[in-house]
């Protein structure tokens, strides 16, 4: 379906522009202004030039948080994407069972982020939680508030619990769009399960999987509430991801200048990643259409 060129379409977009400009451009401008100044009491400002940037770029705190963040997002993708595909392939195709699975799987997605944190906070405690109790009964020492490794394991497990369903639902939607003729053809060719997956299902899921990777990467890259409730960024700084560190700086210490410089650099990284993903997606779409 070719779209027609119509410049008056701009009129329809104006409300969105105004609203998003109000809640995105004005705050971004403010962040830029703050990042070059020092403030006293939040209303007196002094020009300090690039001081905050220099300080942050030479501080280990920022780089550590950045490294942790990258590692976390990478692990999340590594677990959730294959697991989500596996679950989607295992889902019942239709009928009552499919509805039940859909509803139950969506449930974690609808739980407020802080309640997700609370659920796992309770679940993992050795005194009152099922998981913590079971592990300690098995003789495994496990304490997510003392041991950095346990904290990481819990945060990752929590995120897998929370978001794998999203990947699964997206993949499921992709699988549903495959015409049954494809499967019949594969059957005639006596194709095995693996080659059906490799040559029919995976290519058809490519579009939704790309979206899934983008969303999971971005959302895990800005994760805040769940680890904040679960571990508070600890033990020590072990689970202090970028957003947790930033909020600590901005709202905890109310350091307007450094927090603004931090925000701006964070945003630049996000902008770069979004642009790369978006361009790859658009280019893939175009190639698909030309084929």
């Amino acid at each position, binding site marked *: 379906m070719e779209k027609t060129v*119509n410049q008056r379409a701009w009129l329809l977009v104006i409300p969105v522009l105004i609203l998003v400009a109000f809640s995105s451009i004005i705050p971004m401008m403010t*962040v830029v202004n703050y990042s070059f100044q020092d403030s006293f009491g939040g209303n007196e400002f002094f020009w300090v030039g690039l001081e905050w940037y220099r300080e942050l770029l030479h501080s280990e705190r920022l780089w550590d948080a950045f490294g942790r963040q990258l590692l976390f997002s990478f692990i999340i993708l590594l677990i959730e994407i294959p697991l989500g595909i596996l679950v989607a392939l*295992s889902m019942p195709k239709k009928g009552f069972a499919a509805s039940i699975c*859909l509803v139950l799987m969506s*449930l974690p997605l609808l739980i407020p982020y802080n309640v997700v944190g609370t659920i796992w906070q309770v679940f993992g405690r050795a005194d009152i939680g*099922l998981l913590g109790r079971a592990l300690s009964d098995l003789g495994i020492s496990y304490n997510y508030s003392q041991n950095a490794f346990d904290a990481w394991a819990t945060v990752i497990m929590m995120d897998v619990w929370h978001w794998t369903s999203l990947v699964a639902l997206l993949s499921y939607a992709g699988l549903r769009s495959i015409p049954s003729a494809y499967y019949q053809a594969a059957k005639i060719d006596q194709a095995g399960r693996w080659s059906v997956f490799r040559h029919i299902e995976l290519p058809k899921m490519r579009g939704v999987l790309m979206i899934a990777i983008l969303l999971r990467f971005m959302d895990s890259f800005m994760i805040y*509430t769940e680890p904040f409730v679960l571990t508070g960024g600890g033990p020590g700084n072990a689970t202090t991801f970028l*957003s947790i560190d930033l909020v600590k700086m901005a709202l905890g210490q109310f350091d307007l200048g450094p927090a603004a410089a931090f*925000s701006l650099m964070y945003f630049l990284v996000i902008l770069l990643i979004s642009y790369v993903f978006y361009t790859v997606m658009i280019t893939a779409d175009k190639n698909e259409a030309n084929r």
Partner: protein
Amino acid sequence: MSDKPAKRKRRSGSRLSILVMIAYLAFLLVPIYWLVIMSFKSNAEILGMFTLFPENFTLDNYRTIFGDPSWYMGYVNSFIYVSLNTVISLLVALPAAYAFSRFRFFGDNHLFFWLLTNRMAPPAVFALPFFQLYSSVSLFDTHIAVALAHCLFNVPLAVWILEGFMRGVPREIDETAFIDGYGFTRFFTRIFIPMIAPGIGVTAFFCFMFSWVELLLSRTLTSVEAKPITAIMTRTVSASGLDWGVLAAAGVLTIIPGAIVIYFVRNHIAKGFALGRV
């Protein structure tokens, strides 16, 4: 001859599928189950003994919440700003999504990308400037402030989902209506909107959901009057006198609205996720 082993193979394959599915659902549901039964236990039972099922079934925790305005007003506040946000997002997103789905215009791709970046931007970046912005226009601690702040990610989301649904409606319908003498406004409200009603429903669901689950911005922008339930819960957590039973009950009550809406959109949800690129 070759038919039989193939059949057996498929059946064993489906048995494996069922196993994977059951294991996955169990993994999802056990933590929720733990929260639910905890909300029916007394604190003495939670801390004193380890039971898989509440020994002394009690509704006291829920009574505490429904008897204390500082608890239940949290739910009311959340509902107010979530509904406001859903309505605002839909109202501005509907025309924009129509424009993106039907026309090419100057800068459309760049505009779309710009909207995407707002969906991807970390709320933590915006928490501080939002706090300053809404304080300066004296909207701090109002429902509308939170509703507007959540538009940052919900409006782009609504535009994408709606655009996906609208692209599925053939253009001929628009053209026929215009030939029949319908003006744009009348066509849009009388014909087009009813046609994409399921899409609007799914969009509303996602706006509702993302506004409902968000904590950081809603906590930053409120203090007393509009404090949402999620913020009240984290406050309770950080205060050291932990009342686990009440906390669990409050958590269960935040899950219920989502569970109810999801039942209504269950048949569209997979499609919605795919279109919405949420």
